[in-house]
């Protein structure tokens, strides 16, 4: 599904250049659930952004579903994002003036889905994340956990091949975090490939594989036994 080789990325900070990724080799198969771990500054968010075609690497190759991702113009990038990728952000990034249902329906709007079908599908995903009753509420009327679940529903709405989550539980307390992770695990159970960037050990262990980054290189890449979030919720 995802295949990257010798990926480099550096940011210009005034006169200095900050080398964030220093040669990443990394493969993701279909249906995997991977945690990308590392302390802040390790390059994990940068990696995720590159994987999400939100940012571009300086060097190296990136294949997404067999297609090479390089020097895409914004139009093609937008098409790929729409077709292959779903995003979940730490700060939710919901559109504040749209209600939950419309937020979830938006990726479908950009796929050119008709309004009534859009609404129907969006409602289906809202039900899936358990927020059908909150469909008409604006984001600022929802709790953090609810907002993140709306964001997950939105990421799923376009039926992407890969779900990219950047610190999805970073702004949530542990109970809510576990609820969100349980939802993400369920989605993975249905076969969706998921990448989660986190710096929390317990969240990482809810994935099936942990990739550890430090100073822009992978220092550890190992399969782990998945901890089900549900079993922790009642502890």
């Amino acid at each position, binding site marked *: 599904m995802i295949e990257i080789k010798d990926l480099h990325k550096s940011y210009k900070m005034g006169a200095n250049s900050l080398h964030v990724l220093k040669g990443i080799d990394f493969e993701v198969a279909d249906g995997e659930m991977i945690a990308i771990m590392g302390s802040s500054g390790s390059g994990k968010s940068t990696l995720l952004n590159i994987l999400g075609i939100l*940012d571009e690497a300086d060097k190296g190759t990136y294949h997404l579903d067999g297609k090479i991702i390089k020097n895409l113009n914004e139009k093609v990038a937008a*098409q790929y994002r729409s077709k292959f990728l779903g995003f979940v952000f730490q700060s939710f990034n919901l*559109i504040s*003036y749209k209600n939950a249902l419309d937020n979830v329906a938006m990726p479908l709007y950009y*796929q050119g889905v008709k*309004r009534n079908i859009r609404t129907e599908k969006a409602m289906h995903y809202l039900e899936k994340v358990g927020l059908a009753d909150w469909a008409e509420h604006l984001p600022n009327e929802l709790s953090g956990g609810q907002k993140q679940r709306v964001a997950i529903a939105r990421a799923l709405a376009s039926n992407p091949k890969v779900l990219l989550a950047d610190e999805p539980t970073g702004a949530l307390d542990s109970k809510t975090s576990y609820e969100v992770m349980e939802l993400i695990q369920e989605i993975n159970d249905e076969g969706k490939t998921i990448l989660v960037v986190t710096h929390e050990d317990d969240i990482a262990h809810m994935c099936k594989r942990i990739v550890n980054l430090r100073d822009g290189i992978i220092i550890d890449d190992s399969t782990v036994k998945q901890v089900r979030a549900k079993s922790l919720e009642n502890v």
Partner: protein
Amino acid sequence: MFSLERWQEIFETIRKNKLRTFLTGLSVGSGIFILVILLAIGQGMQNGISKEFENDASNRISVWTGVTSESYKGLNPGRRIQLDNEDYDLAETKNIEQLEYKSGVYSRWGQMTSYKTENGSYRVEGVRGDYQFLENATLTTGRYINQSDINAFEKVAIIGNRVYQDLFKKENAIGEYIEISGVKFKVVGVYTDPGGEREENRIFIPLSTSQRVFNAGDKLRSLAFTLEKQNNFEAALAASEVFTAQLEADLKAKHIISPTDERAIRINNSLEGAKRIYDLIAMIKWFFWGVGICTIIAGVVGVSNIMLIIVKERTKEIGIRKAIGAQPISIIGMILHESIFVTAIAGFLGLIFSLFILEMVGPLIETDYIRNPQVDFQVAFITVIILVVAGAVAGFFPAYRASTIKPIEALRDE
């Protein structure tokens, strides 16, 4: 661009961002409103001033006489100059080719006039048939003076609308006899004059009759002429200036008046006055256009400013939209569509509101210098289009920039 889906999206955005929409609309709408009102006032002033100068033929040349102010060829100053039929004949025969209308005038002020029990005091003017056109008078009923009246010394009168109302109280006047200074005249016509009541407060009788009735011999009070029409204003003005100068020289030579004496013979050339008025009107017009264009520029700047702020404010939203699959073109389209829609609606509301105000208030304005303020609808319409296009252009560049920045940068924007 015109898909229903896009419209739904736009309406939703507008509904959820009422203040933003209102402010954009207000700047556009008020700009159009001010422009239309300004142009209408300009037009109103033009109408008013034009109206003031409509009471006589616009190219009328009038000759009066006064008292000499300079001694000349042994004659003392203070000599009263009197025009007579000979002067008229001189002017006529010499310029017969280029004269359009011509008349000598012998008039008397304050002549007691009566019909049955009604009476009043009016100015009575003995004129030729052409005088109707020199005065810009229109007959409401009957006929004007003709050559056979002059030849036969007919005692006929054409009375002004005001005189008619005073004496006849809306009864039939044609064929009735009125008494002017003890002499009976048959009313053959009633006229109106764009100059209004002041000009309709007169009675016209044949020139020959007036000279005989008032025992004036062949004396004339004044002469009035118009020249044949020319193709353009400049040619007409030039011709009339040549004619005026020539006429003045001829009359001065005949009456032995110093060429530099400005009081003895006075010639009023309406065209010269008209030129000043047209220049003034043109100035007023340019002034209002200048102000109007400045208003439009201010409006365009205002719209551009708001568009910049809107795009800036929506940068993060644009990032989110791009992250979930929005094409750059759809981002630009969304912003432009919304801005064009809002500015167009607001612009036309401003237009309709200002036209409505003009329609309501316009007829209530009763000053001599603003009359019937109105605006060329086409001009106003084009102005709205300009403002809408300007808003779109102003919105395009920030929208384009926003659509090309990487979503990750847009998302970072707080």
